[in-house]
């Protein structure tokens, strides 16, 4: 679906660092200095203990496939079939993403399969974090 645009995020003051991170090919999470909870999506206080002693940390980029569906309806920016997945980051939090770099079939998309982040530039401001099977990386 070249030429047609995905629905892109509009960073807010609390999330801007995350989108600056992906632009620089970094996946940034936050870690609570008080209770050590690592969390996503970004917010300026810990969702577990409300402490605002929060540090931004780089994620390893490693994840496993937690669950997904495969959409069979093409929309701007997406040619069906395409997966919409929730992945479990090695650091603990989950995030919604697309698993790319493999057939978009239930045979290729196996739950708990190891994944690694890749970065897909959309424009000068926005880069999306997507995931692909870990073995593709090697």
């Amino acid at each position, binding site marked *: 679906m070249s030429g047609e645009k*995905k*629905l*892109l*995020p*509009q*960073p*807010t003051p609390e*999330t801007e660092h995350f*989108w600056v991170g992906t632009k620089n090919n970094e996946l940034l999470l936050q870690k609570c200095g008080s209770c050590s909870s690592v969390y*996503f*999506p970004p917010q300026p206080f810990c969702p577990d203990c409300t402490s605002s002693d929060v540090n931004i940390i780089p994620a390893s980029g490693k994840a496993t496939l*937690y*669950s*997904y*569906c*495969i*959409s*069979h*309806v093409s*929309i701007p*920016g*997406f040619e069906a*079939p*395409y997966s*919409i*997945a*929730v992945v479990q980051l090695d650091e603990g*939090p*989950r*995030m*919604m*993403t*697309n698993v790319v770099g493999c057939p978009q079939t*239930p045979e290729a998309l196996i*739950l708990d399969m190891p994944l690694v982040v890749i970065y897909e530039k*959309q424009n000068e401001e*926005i880069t*999306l974090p997507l995931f692909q099977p870990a073995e593709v990386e090697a």
Partner: protein
Amino acid sequence: MSKTGISIVGAAETTELGDLPHISQIQLHADAALNALKDAGLKPSDIDGIATAGENPVALVQYLGIEPHWVDGTAVGGCSFMLHIRHAMAALSAGYCKTVLITHGESGKSRVPPPIWPWPPAPGSLEGQFEAPFGPVGPPTILTIPVMRYLETYGISREQLAMVPVIQREWAAKNPRAWFKEQITVDDVLESKMIAYPFTLFMCCPRTDGGGALILTTDDRAKDLAGKTVPILGAGESAETALLSKMEDFTTSRAFRTSGKLAFDQAGISHDDVDHVMIYDAFAHLPLYGLEDLGFCKPGEAADFVGDRHTAPGGKLPVNTSGGGLSYMHSGMYGMYALQEGVRQMRGIAPAQIADANISVVHGLGGMFSASGTIILGSNTNPLDDPGVIQRTTKKLHKIAFRIKFDFIKKLERAMRFELTTSTLARLRSTPELRPQLYFKCYSTATNSWSIIVIR
């Protein structure tokens, strides 16, 4: 079992359901509201509390000519109407208002005008930043995502998932107002168009047009209204997250569990007491999550429970007896139609009426497993207290008297759990057409015992 002191005294859907390009959203609200008012024998000027979702309650205030003392615009998706009921129970109990109208109307198919909820979200919202860029198009591709983890965890097949719409079509076939009535097989479901694997078209609800409305008041006031009251026994509500990725566990909904427990605890009932269940079913997996999270089945056992036909016609726990969102109708915020079927079952007037149904659990979902509301309804207060029944039976037409007598005995049987008052007995005895051969059991709250009452 206990009562909350609040009853539903009016309930109706829009005159038409389905494909209604000639009716706008606000008129769907109004049509349902006027039907419910007529059902309760009330006028808009009798309403002093209003709640709605998907439409500004203020617009309804103006459109219907209401001067409210209480307004609730809670909008958390398709279960908003369950939450409205629970909020109205509190408001009525507190005396903030006396008679509450809850409306729903949605031009889900004809889109007159297009509903603004739920997609796409604002690009700066959490959903707009962390979900929308990855290509979901709303419920069919977000609400469906957890099921792969559920199927994998419990070793459940897509064939088992397909049984949910198959059995609901059996219920829909009994309902003249159902959108889909043709019977389908598991193969039909699996071979229908793929929407979002593992979900095919027949595992997804249709989009149709319609509305519904409910009127609530206190039991004291309900006594003065037409005798179709449905007591509310319990209610619960909860919410978990606006982002699917933040749902704690994809095999069970925290919002479902919390809401269900609150409702069961308030009603003071056990699962064995329940005669009828409605579980919000925009998609085929939701009744499975609902059966488990409400405690009717252990985790992972709902698919077998459905497959063994326990929720089907003739089964021990009838579920989604209107055909549900999958077959009856689904405007977008389906919760109102689940409530309407619960009320019909408790009034004994459902197209697929469950015999002797005295307790109905109606469970709703909002958003993408985001929120939940649960309402537990009781059966009509003692139908012998319904002046309409006595009045009709005193008509001398033999044919009508015979029919009423038959219906009356059935209602008596359903009423066994309720106290029979002295005044009712007197009225019954003074009704000649009913005197012969009448006897029934009744429960006395004075002596906490069952007795056989013989009418002479």
